[in-house]
């Protein structure tokens, strides 16, 4: 039976396509380009307890088949989001995924407790343990399996909302942090956030980014992400949301075969804001032509 609807644990999505955090803001800008209700979900810009101005100076550097960014979690703060953006996200018809970032455990706890009160408007809390562009929290916590397990178990007690933990690829073995998230009580893991990189202007001998380093994203990182999804699928019991360089339906299918139950599209939105429309059409056609429900693809990889 053909269908593009999927489930990530208990969360039903009408399509496996989710707009990745930081590449759709809160949806308003893209709502002028297409009907956002075609999406499985939309993950908000990474939010913090207090508003953040983000990093100064140059925040983007082009790289081969991708780009580096060092936005630094610029966001209006969780209270402003709840007051001004949450209702809009809900009104789009896409599942509302709220990306939660913090400097320390208490930040994450405070945010989850606060957002839990709006559980009728929120489908998922995506715990950002992977932003590489801030000095504390996020990737610093997300690289340490013990810290991941400890934090997720605290958050698990603070909210009944599904918890997806977005992990960093900047670790030796991502299976360790993924398993730690699972042990802490995560409902799913999101793999992967950006790879830490640097671009140098050879004339000035200075990094292009004023933050010196940034997160590398785009098609260049896709093989790394697919490998990590496959590795984690083999050891995890909870579902995986794949992310990293997806820009066409074939990429979505590849990520699902590797073990993803759904996927996030990030950098491709920045290049072609309407790309989810064509990808969705292509996925529907694939599903119909092969008389397959997309969810059957998940983990169907046949390793040598």
């Amino acid at each position: 039976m053909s269908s593009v609807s999927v489930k990530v644990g208990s969360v039903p999505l009408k399509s496996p396509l989710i707009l990745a955090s930081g590449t759709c803001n809160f949806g308003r800008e893209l709502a002028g380009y297409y009907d956002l209700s075609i999406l499985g979900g939309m993950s908000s810009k990474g939010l913090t307890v207090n508003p953040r101005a983000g990093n100064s100076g140059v925040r983007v550097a082009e790289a081969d088949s991708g780009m580096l960014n060092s936005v630094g979690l610029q966001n209006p703060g969780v209270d402003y989001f709840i007051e001004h953006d949450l209702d809009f996200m809900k009104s789009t018809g896409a599942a509302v995924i709220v990306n939660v970032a913090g400097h320390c455990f208490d930040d994450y706890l405070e945010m989850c407790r606060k957002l839990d009160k709006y559980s009728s408007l929120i489908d998922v809390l995506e715990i950002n343990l992977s932003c590489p562009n801030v000095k504390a929290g996020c990737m610093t916590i997300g690289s340490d399996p013990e810290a991941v397990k400890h934090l997720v178990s605290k958050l698990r007690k603070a909210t009944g909302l599904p918890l997806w933990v977005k992990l960093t690829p900047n670790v030796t073995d991502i299976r360790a942090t993924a398993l730690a998230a699972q042990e802490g009580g995560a409902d799913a893991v999101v793999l992967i956030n950006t790879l830490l990189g640097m671009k140098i202007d050879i004339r000035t001998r200075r990094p292009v980014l004023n933050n010196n380093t940034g997160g590398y994203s785009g098609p260049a990182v896709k093989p790394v992400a697919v490998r990590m999804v496959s590795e984690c699928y083999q050891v995890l019991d909870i579902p995986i949301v794949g992310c990293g360089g997806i820009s066409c339906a074939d990429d979505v299918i590849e990520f699902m075969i590797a073990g993803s139950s759904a996927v996030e599209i990030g950098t491709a939105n920045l290049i072609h804001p309407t790309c989810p429309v064509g990808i969705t059409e292509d996925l529907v056609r694939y599903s119909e032509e092969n008389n397959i429900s997309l969810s059957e693809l998940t983990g169907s990889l046949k390793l040598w």
Partner: protein
Amino acid sequence: MEYKKEYKCSVLSREMLLGDTAYIELNCPDIARTARPGQFVNVSCSRFLKRPFGIASVDRDSGSFFIGVKSIGSGTGEIITLDRGDEVDVLGPLGNGFDLDSFGSYILVSGGTGVFPVNFAAQYLESSGKNFTVVQGFGDASQVVLNRPSYVLTTDSGDCGIKGTAIAGLDTLDKCVCGSSSCIICVGPVPMMKAVSGWALNHSMKCYVSMEQRMACGVGICLCCIVKVKADNKDGFVNVRCCKDGPVFDSSEVIW
């Protein structure tokens, strides 16, 4: 509702204005019809990100618009070699344009590639019958583009026009065009826009500038192209998006 689109546009013409600067006409009736002066388009090349260019002119009859492109790297270097018939992906019109209706008269100041969006503003003011004066500032005679005899021309080197910066050009203007009912629009290198902003303040005139930043999406979703503007908060500023909240800003609000 009608959704915004991404267009495939073919190149109708390309003229090299300088050794490194091309004036390119692209076919797109929608953009020609809806674009306002000060807005920009994102144009694809073989590199990863699209490149942003201020719209230099529109021809509604033929359904085309023009951009001025200076080669400053591999992407723009490729775009200035586009030939008639070549196709590019174009996103636009993007950003907010200039307010060219609220004031009695305008002074348009430009330099570098800023002459292109300002050219569109001049085209608009001309067709709406408004009084306006154009001041152009360049490094030397070899950089002069889109100049007309009626424009006040300045060069740093003094090898043509008035010797000095655009400020020297502004200082020559008749006092009657520099009143508070007149507005300055300035697009050029940051030192020019900063100096013109100061000059406007001294003359109690409103001044709008068009800022340039390294951009990724152009539509306001990535937050990569920030401009610091004054704000009543603990930091005294807020980072806003050049592409979506700008690129046109009230110069008195920009933290230079």
